[in-house]
Each structure stands twice: as C-alpha cells, then as structure tokens.
C-alpha cells in the first residue's frame, strides 16, 4: 500500500478540444468558481466550530453578547483548566478511552477469528450460520436494548464497565466486514502455507492477519469511534459519576446544576479535537472501509 495519497478521487480530466487560449482562460475561471464554491461550503460547515472555539475562551458574562470574539474579559484560556476543576473530566476521558479500547480489541480480535472461520474453513452449516449473522445486521439496535438491559441486571453488570464493554464487543457487522476483506485474499497463499505444514492457527496468524491489516484498521476505527460516541447505552447503564464516559459527562455543563456555556464549549472542543486528529491521520483507511463496506453490502 502506497503511503502517499494520489488525487485518486478526481474524474480523469477530459480532453479539451477548443483553442488553447480560450481553454486556459476558461480553466482559470472555472477553477476560481470551483474554489469559491468549495470555500463557501467549507466556510459554512466550519463556522459552528469557529464559534465553538471562540466561545470556549470567553468569560461567562460575554457569552451570547454581540461579537464572537472575546471582549474586555480577555482570552480566557484557563477555561480549559476550569473544566477539569469542576468535573472529573480527565476521569471521563480515561473511562471513554478505556472502554473504547477494550471494545475495539475484542471486536477486532473475535471478528477476525470468526471471519477466518467463515471465509477459509469448511464446516457443516457454515452458510446457514452466516445467513443468521447477516439477518441480525438488519435488526434495529433498539430491539435489543430493553432485553439487554434486563440481562445486565441479572448479571449484575449495571453501572460496571463490563456491562458497557461486553455487549458492544461482539457484532455481526465486524465479522461481515472482515470476511469481505479476507475473501479478496488469494487462497493460493494459505494453501502454500498449509503445504509447508502450517497449522490453521499459523495460517490465520501469520498469513491472513497481516494481509487483512487495512481491514483490521478500518474496523478498529469504526468500532473505536462508534464507541467513543456512544450515548444511549452508557446513559442507561452508568449510575455513579466517576464511571461516566465523555458524552454523559458533557451533559453536566448543560444541566440545571450549571449553564456555563463557555466551559461547556471548552469541554466539547476537548472531546471533539482528538477525533478530528484521528480522522486526519487515518482517513485513508476510513474512506476505503466505508466504500468497501457499501460496495459489498
């Protein structure tokens, strides 16, 4: 896989048949128009974030008055520190990342095992089980929520991290996605390994897994992000404050206890920025994964 990303999303430019001068003038203008539209659209989409960042460094009195820029109160960068002082924000961060990491690890590991079983091994009833897997993907998650909560109660997992990690860790989607990746790996590779006397486990670990790396990364990003964002399940499961995840913790500044918009915005910024960074770094995999998942699905 090449490390640089060529401009592969562009339509191949069509040959132009008019005289050369007209062409360059026309291209100049069309480039300008295009850039103007692109900038305008990006601008509109980015504007809320600009307001977010500026509000996060205002004093509370200046929130919602006139200018977007901080006024006489100055640029209050210590709002960001104040967030940590008022709520155990670091704790929420750690909780969120801890849970998301565990879910991601379990998800990727078990899904890759199952995908291996579905794509490489022959066993009776395989296709039937796979259809079962596929059919569970069509069910709305909401159908499972209420029974799952009852299961959590009877297992005693309410308000515990296990209750957040385990139910989220096993999905048919991950298996399905990785199976698609694995099917595109030529069978000759693992046959060759088997002739050399490799066990099934060795084939999985040394041949298939390295070849599926982009798929694993894609699934990992999906799972991590999905879990980092997840709101419904932590909301119903978590009772004690020190176990809150970020999305739940953020609600504090918007509750009746506090209406401190500037601090809220600082907290929002801090919870959003890691994702933006992750996206910028890993977008190549993400884009590919989304496209693959859709084409095959």
């Amino acid at each position, binding site marked *: 896989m090449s490390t640089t990303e060529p*401009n592969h999303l562009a339509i*191949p*430019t069509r040959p132009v048949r008019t005289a050369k001068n007209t062409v360059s003038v026309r291209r100049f203008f069309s480039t300008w128009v295009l850039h103007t539209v692109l900038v305008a659209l*990006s601008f509109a989409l980015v504007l809320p974030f600009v307001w977010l960042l500026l509000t996060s460094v205002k004093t509370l009195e200046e929130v919602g008055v*006139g200018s977007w820029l901080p006024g006489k109160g100055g640029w209050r960068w210590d709002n960001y520190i104040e967030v940590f002082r008022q709520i155990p924000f670091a704790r929420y961060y750690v909780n969120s990342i801890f849970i998301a990491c565990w879910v991601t690890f379990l998800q990727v590991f078990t899904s890759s095992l199952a995908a291996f079983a579905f794509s490489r091994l022959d066993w009776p009833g395989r296709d039937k089980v796979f259809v079962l897997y596929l059919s569970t993907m069509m069910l709305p998650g909401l159908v499972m929520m209420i029974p799952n909560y009852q299961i959590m109660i009877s297992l005693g997992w309410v308000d515990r991290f296990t209750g957040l990690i385990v139910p989220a860790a096993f999905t048919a989607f991950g298996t399905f996605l990785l199976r698609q990746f694995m099917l595109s790996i030529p069978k000759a590779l693992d046959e060759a390994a088997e002739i050399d006397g490799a066990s099934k486990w060795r084939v999985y670990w040394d041949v298939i897994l390295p070849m599926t790396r982009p798929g694993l990364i894609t699934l990992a990003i999906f799972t991590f992000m999905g879990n980092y964002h997840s709101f419904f399940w932590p909301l119903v499961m978590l009772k004690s404050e020190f176990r809150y995840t970020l999305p739940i913790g953020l609600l504090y500044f918007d509750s009746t206890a506090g209406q401190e918009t500037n601090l809220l915005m600082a907290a929002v910024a801090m919870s959003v920025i890691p*994702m933006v960074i992750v996206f910028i770094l890993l977008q190549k995999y993400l884009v590919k994964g989304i496209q693959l998942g859709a084409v095959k699905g």
Partner: protein
Amino acid sequence: MLFLAPNFLGVLAFTVFPVLFSIMLAFTNWDLRLHNMFKDEPLKFVGLDNFTRLFTEADFTRYLGNTLFMMMGIPFSVGGSLLAAMLLSSDTRGGGGRTWAWLLASGGLVVSVALLAATGLATTGMTILFVGVACGILAMGMLGGVTVYRTLFYTPHFTAGVATFLLWKKLYNPESGPINAALQPVLDTLAGFVNKQPPTAVSGLRWVFLTGVAALLLWAVSKLCRMWNEGELSGRAMVLPMVLLTLPTVVAMYWTQTRGMPGYVLAGVMGSVGVWVLLRVFVGSRAFLPPTGGEGLGTGLMIALCAMTVQFILLGFSAVFANLPAMAADGLEAPKWIASYDWAKPSLMLMGLWGAIGSNNMLLYLAALTNVPGELYEAADIDGARRFQRFWHVTWPQLAPTTFFILVMSTIGGLQGGFEMAKTMTNGGPAGATTTLSYFIFIEGFETGRLSFAAAVSWALFILVFSITMFNWRFGNKYVND
C-alpha cells in the same frame, strides 16, 4: 469451530438471545409499574394487546409522524452530498491561477490576522475573523487540494454526537445564540422594507410561487405520462410517483403555515392535474394495461422526488410571502428554533443537513464518480452535450446504484434516528414535537417502565424497516438496471 466460538457466543448472548427475549416481551404485560418490589402482579401473556395499543393510544402514530417528518430532510442531505462529491471530484489543482490564488489567500490570511491582533475585539474584528477563516480555508485548499476540502466537509459528520448536538443547542438559543443574533438585524431591515411596500404587492408574490408549483406539477406529470405512453413506465410504477407528486399540495392544505392560502386554488390545481392525467393516459397511444411489473419505477420515483422537494420549497416561499405583510407590521421576530413547537423539527433537520452533507454518503459518491468510465464523458463531449446534459445522461445514471444504496440506508437510519438529538437538545419537546420513535422507546422502556409496550414499539419499528428493505430489494435491481 474454535475460531468462530468467541464471536459466535457473544452474538448469541447479546444479539440473538435478546431478540428472542424481546419477541416474548412484546406479547406479555411486563410493566415496571406492575412488577416491582412493592407490587408483584403475575406476569401474563397478553397476546396482541401491546400492538393494538400502538394504534389506540395516540402517541405512537404521532411520534411515527414526527419520525417521518424528520426523514423529509433525507433528499436534501443526499442532494447535498452529491453536490459536495461532484465539487470535490472536479480537478481543483488544475488551472493557471493557482499560484496567484495561493498568494492572494495567504496574503489575506496574514493581513486579517495582523489586523485582528491590532484592532482588537470589536465588530470589525468579526469581519476580519470571517475573512481570515475563509482565506485560511482557501490557502489550505490550494496547498492540499481535494483532501483538505474533503476533511473539512467530513468533519461535521465525523464529530456528530452529543458534543456537536450540545454545540447546536447553544447556537440555536433564541436569546444568547449567534444564529438569532445574526438573524434579527436582517429581519428588522426586511420588516422595514416590507412595511414601505403596498401589502398586496408583497403578498401577490405568492401567486408567482404557486404558479411555479402548478407548472412543476404539470411538467412532472406530463413527463411521467409520456414515459407511460412510450412504455418506459409500467402502470404500477406510475402510481407511487403520482402519489408523491401530489403530496405537497395535499400537505399544504392542512399545514398551519399555509392556512392563509385559499383551499379552492389548490383543489383547482389538483383537479386540473387529474383531468390532465386522465386525458394523457386514456387518449394516449398506449392502451390501458393492467398494472404489471415495476419497470421505470426508479426513474419515475426520482422525477417525483425531485419535483416534490422543489414543490415543497416553492410552497414554503408562497406561504412566507402570503403572510409577510401581516407579520412585518409588528416587526419580524427571529424564530425560537428548538424552543418553538413549529420550528423544532426544521431546526433539527437543518442541523442534520449540516452533518450529512459531508457524510459517508459523500465518500460513497466520490468513489462512484471515480468509477464512471471516462469514455462516456468523451462520447458525451463529442455529441456536444452541455454540462447539465452530461450530468443527466452520463453521471446520474451511472450513480444510480449508489444513490439507491444511500437512499435505502438513510431511510433505515432515519426511521431509527433522533434519539440523541431529542435527549440532549430538546428532551423530545416542546410538547413532543421532536419525539421520534427511538426516543419514545427510550421513554417507555427506561423511564415509564412499560417494558412490554416499548418492545412492541421496537418491533413495529422493525417491521417498518424490514418492509422498506424488502420493497427496495425487490425494486432495487430494476432501478439500477434502468
């Protein structure tokens, strides 16, 4: 097999078992108000009671209506994604003006930042700030090309969640939010301007838009009829687009905002369209056939959907102009957004649009656009196709499978959506205006405690999702092959 075991057991325990559990639950009377530590009535099998209750209690149908209303934003967001993808897939790096544009942008950036630092923090600061942000985007775009814009477009979707919902809650705040702060002066000027005009001139403008609606309706209907007559459209494929086409007019009759509009006008439009259809269909060259097959359904639906969207927009404008003089008389007031019953749903839809333009849909469209064979464009160029013709005859048909997939997924997602927004922004209010089915399930299942009823609602939701998927699956291939 050992390989399968961990994942399979997990899926079994936390997906398959809950599903079966949930089916059972839907047929019992498990209600935490009846079965708790103080009061323990026997758990009974109640048959279909929960499901009949869906239709006897007003809530379900009302919240289903809310959900469907919010789903009307889907065509807009899909259109926006397509637009964004097409913009991104044009060659932004080409062109002779690149260096100059780059210089200009970075110059603007430097100047505005310097001015910002110098002038400090007044209203002029705002202008400089905006110019600076725009120039910054341009400069980055010039440097990084498509990837930068793609990242910027994608960010709202990528960060969408509780964090950005809270952000929008503050943006929408009627008193302290920036949206109304920016809108109010504009509205004041507008009110002043309108008050100086004769009221009939302003409200007369609505006729322009109404004529537009009628013309569009006629155009789409005659297009459909022509396709029908030429045998491109089967009878069955005719019905659904027709229903969609007439939907805006029907809605307009009952919509509170359009009450001022004379009903007989709309009825007249509808009547004449009906006569027109009958004429076209019966006098047309093709004999009336019993409805068979679904050929052309996709194209018909697309025409109908586009026409429906534009109709709604035009109707909205005509309603605005009809009421403008009366409203402007005592000064225009910016809407209360999520705090007002009428505006809450549109507000959430607008926010959804913000997140949906640069979403996964855009990425899918980008991939699909790359796969359109270049020869097709060359052929179109040789035939002398204009820009729009190139789009309509080459790009759009080639994108059909993607559009289809996106629409299916968005519909499924839309039916299940709305919980996070409702919970973080509005608590389902005002007066239940933004309570969608998913939020309803949450309330019944986790707050009221009517577990069985909530399970029944979730199964009703599943049946909806399932039937839409089946419908799409059956007609999908035909659409894609059109």
